[in-house]
Every structure is written in structure tokens, then in C-alpha cells.
């Protein structure tokens, strides 16, 4: 729970601009007859670090998966950097290459070496020359502190290392927004810190981030806003200090008492 609490975080570097990065208006989503997201409205400015939390099944993963169209929404408007998500394939590809995503289970490509994992998309999607892509990949591998693993295969790495590779893989596409879908939930406790450290570094560089996580310590220190979801709706959002110290809704209180109470 408290992997990052003892760390000095320089919040002054994390500037929030007033430019809108993501705008969601009146979004509804159903899985068949099941109404999974109800009337979601939110605006994310560039440079914001948003933590989304809530009990399981509350729709928080679905929400961020809608942002890069891994899930399709049925009603409402999602626009990313001014591009509206619709079924136009061109828009989807454009948005996906600007929005990076990190998954709970890493989803590295097991048949490719670490370096190939990182260079594949830049070479094929961005049409970057191979040399340049490899240089970029090494740069980001150094950033996530595992350059020596470049020639190994994902199966040979620990969970924490794999998740760091996954972050580096997303960064290689030079995204403007990063989505994290429970990036530490599948990790052993001692590996959580190495991943969170990288995320904090990213935050300090001013990356716009939406993080679905139960790491409340991370939320308290890094996020500029915490969103609590339940039953497919945004129940409460606030600055972290206020959110943790003075939750307004009973549901939030209950959730916080359960998650922090031990």
C-alpha cells in the first residue's frame, strides 16, 4: 500500500496546462443488456495525473479502455486531442498512436525479443527507420533501467521487468497520453515499487496520465485528481488531499475504509 510514501516527490515539476487532452461528454456503454458505464462526463487537461479507483466491477477499466477504443461506447462523445472517436478507422488509428496503454498482464509479445517488442510498432506504424527506432528503444530501456535485457525474450524476465518493458514499449511510440490499467495488480509486492518509480518519473516529466490503480499511496503523492467510480458511474472526484481526508460520499467512505483500513 505504501510503496512510495517515503519518497520525496517534487510536485512543482508537474504542471497542468489548461489545454484539454481528453473530453468525455455524456458517455454510456452497454455490454449487451448490461449498462456498464452510465453518463460519464470528464475533462482531462494536458499534464494531469488522474487516478481512477473503485471496487471491482465498477467500470473503471472499461472507462479507460474506451478512451483508446479497445471498447466501443454506444452513446456520448469521447474526443482525444480534439479528434472525436467514431467508427472511422482512420481516427481510431490516429488516436491509438497518440495514446499509450499499459496493461495489468503486460501483454508483451512473447515471440519477439525485448528490443523487437519496442521497435516493432515504431517501425511498422510510425515508419521510423530501424536504426533510429532501435536507438529510441535503447533510450527508453535505459530510462526503465533494464538496457542489459534488450536481447532477451519476455519469458526470461521477472514480472516487474516485464511491466517496465511494457511501459517503455508504449513510450517508444512517443505518446502524449498514457493509460495504465492496474499496472501493478499482477505483480509481487517487491516488484511494485520498481514499476511505480518509473511511473512517478513519467509524471514528473509532465506526461498526461490516467491510472486505474489501488495504490493509494501513489494516488496521494502523484495524482492531481482522484476519481472514484462505483456501479458504472463517477461517484466522486477531488484533489487527493481532500479526497482521502474528507470524502463526501458514503460509498467513497466505505471504499476508503475497506482499502485503507488494514
Amino acid at each position: 500500500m505504501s510503496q512510495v510514501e517515503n519518497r520525496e516527490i517534487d510536485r512543482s515539476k508537474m504542471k497542468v496546462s489548461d489545454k484539454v487532452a481528453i473530453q468525455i461528454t455524456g458517455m454510456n456503454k452497454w455490454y449487451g443488456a448490461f449498462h456498464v458505464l452510465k453518463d460519464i462526463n470528464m475533462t482531462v487537461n494536458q499534464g494531469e495525473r488522474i487516478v481512477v479507483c473503485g471496487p471491482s466491477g465498477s467500470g473503471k477499466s472499461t472507462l479507460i479502455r474506451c478512451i483508446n477504443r479497445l471498447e466501443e461506447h454506444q452513446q456520448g462523445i469521447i474526443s482525444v486531442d480534439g479528434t472525436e472517436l467514431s467508427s472511422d478507422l482512420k481516427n481510431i488509428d490516429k488516436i491509438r498512436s497518440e495514446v499509450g496503454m499499459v496493461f495489468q498482464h503486460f501483454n508483451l509479445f512473447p515471440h519477439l525479443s525485448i528490443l523487437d517488442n519496442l521497435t516493432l510498432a515504431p517501425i511498422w506504424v510510425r515508419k521510423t527507420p530501424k536504426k533510429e527506432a532501435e536507438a529510441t528503444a535503447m533510450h527508453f530501456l535505459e530510462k526503465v533501467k533494464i538496457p542489459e535485457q534488450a536481447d532477451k525474450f519476455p519469458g526470461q524476465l521477472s514480472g516487474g521487468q516485464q511491466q517496465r518493458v511494457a511501459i517503455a514499449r508504449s513510450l517508444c511510440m512517443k505518446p502524449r497520453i498514457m493509460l495504465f490499467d492496474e499496472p501493478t495488480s499482477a505483480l509481487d509486492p517487491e516488484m511494485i515499487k520498481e514499476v511505480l518509480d518509473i511511473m512517478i518519473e513519467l509524471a514528473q516529466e509532465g506526461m498526461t496520465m490516467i491510472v486505474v490503480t489501488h495504490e493509494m499511496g501513489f494516488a496521494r503523492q502523484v495524482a492531481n485528481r482522484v476519481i472514484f467510480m462505483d456501479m458504472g458511474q463517477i461517484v466522486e472526484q477531488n484533489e487527493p488531499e481532500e479526497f482521502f481526508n474528507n470524502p463526501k460520499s458514503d460509498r467513497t467512505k466505505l471504499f476508503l475504509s475497506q482499502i485503507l483500513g488494514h
Partner: protein
Amino acid sequence: MSDLSYVRTEMLGEQEPPLGETGILKWARENLFSSYGNGALTIISVVFLFFVLDYVLPWMFQSSWTANSLGECREQIAAAYGEGTDGACWAVIRERYRQLLFGFYPSNLYWRPILAFVLLGFAIAPVLFDKLPRKLLIFSGLFPFIAFWLIWGGTLWTPVGALLGFGIGYLASKFLPSLIGSLGATIATFLLPVIWWVFLYGPIGAAIAVYVGDNNMDSAIAGYEQRIASGEMNAAELVTAKRELKTLQSLPDKKAELAGLEVEAEKLRAALPDYLADVKTPENLPIATSKEDKVAFEKLLNIEGREVGIRDAIQRIYEDVGRIGPMVPVTSDQLGGFTLSILIGITGITLSLPIGILLALGRQSDLFVVKTICVGFIEFIRGVPLITLLFVASTLLNYFMPPGTSFDLVLRVMIMVTLFASAYMAEVIRGGLAALPKGQYEAADALGMDYWQATRLIIMPQALKISIPNIVSNFIGLFKDTTLVMIVGLMDPMGLSNAIRANQAWNGIVWEIYGFIALMCSGSSVSPCHVIPCIWSASFRPDTRVKEHIKCLK
């Protein structure tokens, strides 16, 4: 000093191990006589083997290699090894091994299929060994066209024109997306080559043949005349050569005749009453047609028929004389033996994998129409035995073709075998696709890859790798299934064994031919079946690190 104390004063040297612990005895004890049961089994097997070999070996070696018929074989064996000796008549293999290997392929052209198979090795090599220069892959891609040209011969236009279709598809996929969008480009990538093959390829080829043929005509005629005058041919060859020369020389007459017929047909058509203008066959004539009209109509039909025949003859002459390149054409009915089996097998194997991949992807598609077509195709083909498909190929397909068209039987069989294998392949690959975690698709999507990129770079390499054991067994099965073509009258080795036995000299011979075929089969079937899936799986790699994939061979 207590009794427990002990000091070694002298170190021991090494001693020979006991007899049963080294060499052959140890091996025998461990592998043959490790228990009473195993010992008994060993002895029984040896005795059994002895009895089999005691019969087979004398049969194999008390044999005749030089006889010219079964009867002669028996005489020779009786003379050499005593009356009543049962020996093999290997002479039939000596006389017919070429036929079993090459079918009725002209013997002076054997180098062509042999060269094709040698080149196959070169085509496979760069895919298997990443140390070789990548540019050799271009040769691998061209190989099917080269092999086609080598085996069937004929004009160079046939393979080149077919290849151009793929070139058109490639150009469309490269340049059109920026012009008309990715969906349109995908459709155009498939459609443009088809348009080329169906509407342009044939007529352009015919036009080239006419152009080249007109230029070559004189030298071709002179060549025939020279060969006839040289007196090197035997009587039968002379007759054939003279007939062919006469055919060539008749070209101007044929053209004149055609022109005359066209004029006549035009006249008759103009004279025909209007209400008969759209009638095509005598059966469709209105009942009220008058007798004179009927006669006129039948006369027109007759002339049109002759027109078709002459046009056909002219085209044949041009196809013959207007051939580009030195390759004498070899027709499909001259293919046979192992050449035919390997040809059908390799074609089926190499084509069924890509088609199977497309079907498997189509079956998972969100597009209802595509999905329905793929599921329908796969389930239909899998529901029908191969032998039925072969019958459809040999009999029914001809009814669907325009009347009188004879569509090469070997090609028909190849298509059916490929379709059959593709349906099974699709299901094998679907298994591989189903085994992939959903996260792989999502990760590829999240990185902004489009469908084909994700499929090619992420999904297929993994799915194929999972499927390789099943793909290989499918291929081995396919290779064995090629013997079924004998049912539709193709002369594969099994078909030839029957034909050889039908020769008076060899009637009644069985084991020798089957033994030879079995020997050849066990040697030839395994290797291509193992190698080709690896090639395909390797070709989906963005960066061909094939060592990983060679593991699949093991």
C-alpha cells in the same frame, strides 16, 4: 589405540570394471534383457525377424535384374537358383523406374523437373538459414513461377503474366491507401489482380503470341523442312513432323478461309429474320419458325461452328510458333509418377497454408458476410470426402465450364486438393488463434497497428507456432492422399503400377513395384511436410530469426 582407528597406507589403483558393466554387454543388459519379460520379448522378436528375413532376403537377392518380362525373370531365376525358387523380378524396376519417377515426361527433358526440384532447395534455403543474404528471398518468391515454367514449358508469358498480377496487387497495396483510403485499397489489392488475370492476361498473351509467331513463322517452317530433309528421323517422327509442317504452312489458307466464313456468316445473319436474331441454339427456335428460316438458321450455326474451329486452329498455330523462350511445352497428361505426386503435394501444401490462414481469419471476422462464407466453405469441404471432391474435379467441373472446354485435369485436381487441405488447415490455425490470449490483440491495437499489421506481426507468428505439430500432420496426410488421384485416371505411382502390370510382359507382378513405391514414399514424404510450415511461419516474422523456428523441425 582403539579398534576403530584405521589408516590407509596404500592408495588403490583403478581396476577393470566387471564384464557386464561396459560396452555391448552393458547395453544389451540394459536395453534387451533388463527383466525376464523383456528378455523373452527380445528373443521372440529376434526369432520373428529371423523368419521374416529368412523369407525376404533370399527373395530379394535371388532375383533377376536383366529380364524383359516376368516369364523371362522366372526362367532366369530358375536357371540360376534352381527350379521352384521364389525370387524378386527387379527387372521391372530397371525397365520402369524412370516412368515411376517421371511418368510420361519426355526423357530428353528430364532435366527440367530435376532442375525444378534442385531449385526448390535453393528457394527454401534463405528462409531456413538467416545467415544467407536476404535478397535470396526474392528468388524464393519467384520460384513457383520458375518451377511452373520448367515443368510445363511453353511461352514465357504464362509465368510472367501471372506474376504481373501479383505485381499489380503489390503496387495497389503500396500506393493506393494514400489515394483512396485503406478499405478501398484492400479491396483493390484483391480485385485488380483478379481483373488482370481474368480479362487482360489471356488476350495480351494471345496478342504477343501472334506478334512473335508472325516473326518466327518463316524460320519455324525452315527448321521443319531442314529436319525433314536431314533424314535423321524415323518413320513415325517423319510423319508427325510433316503433319506439323503442313499445319504451319496452312496458316495463310486458314486465315483466308476464316475471312470468307466471316463474310458468309455476316450475310446469313443479315438475311435471317429479326425474331431469330437472339436465338442461340436450334432447341430454342420458336415453334412457328418456317422451314426456310430453320434451314438458314442451321446453316448459320454450322458456319459459326466452323469459324470457331478455324479460329481455334489459328490460335493453336500461333501458340506453337509464337512461344517466347526455348521451353518445349509439356502437357499435363505427360506428368505422372512421383513427379506428379510431389507436384500435387507441394502445391497443395504451399497454397493451403495461406488460404487456410485467410479462412481462419475470415471465420473470426466481425463482418457477417465474410464470416458466413468462410464457415460455409470450411464446413462444406470438411463434410465431403476428398475422393468425392476429386470426382467433382474430374467429372462435374467440366459441366460447369462452357461446353467443350477441357480444363486441365491436373490443374483441376490441384485446385481441389488445395481447397480440401485449406479447409482443414483453417481449422488447425483457428486452434492456434484461439490459444492466443486476448491481451496480444489488445496490445497490438493499443500500439496503433492496423488489422493486417497486427495479424502479420503479432498474431500469426504465434498462432502458427502453436499449430505447427498439427499443420505437419495435416501435410503428411495430404501427401499420402495424393495417391487418391489414381481414381480419376491420373498416373501417380499407384496408377502407374496398374498400368505397368497391364503390360503383357509384366502382368502379374506386384510386390516389386509396391516395394519400390513404398521405399520412395517414405523417403520423400517427410521432408517437405516438415519444412514448409516453418517457411510460412518464418515468413511472417518481421525480422527473420529463423533459428527459433527451426526448433519446430525438431
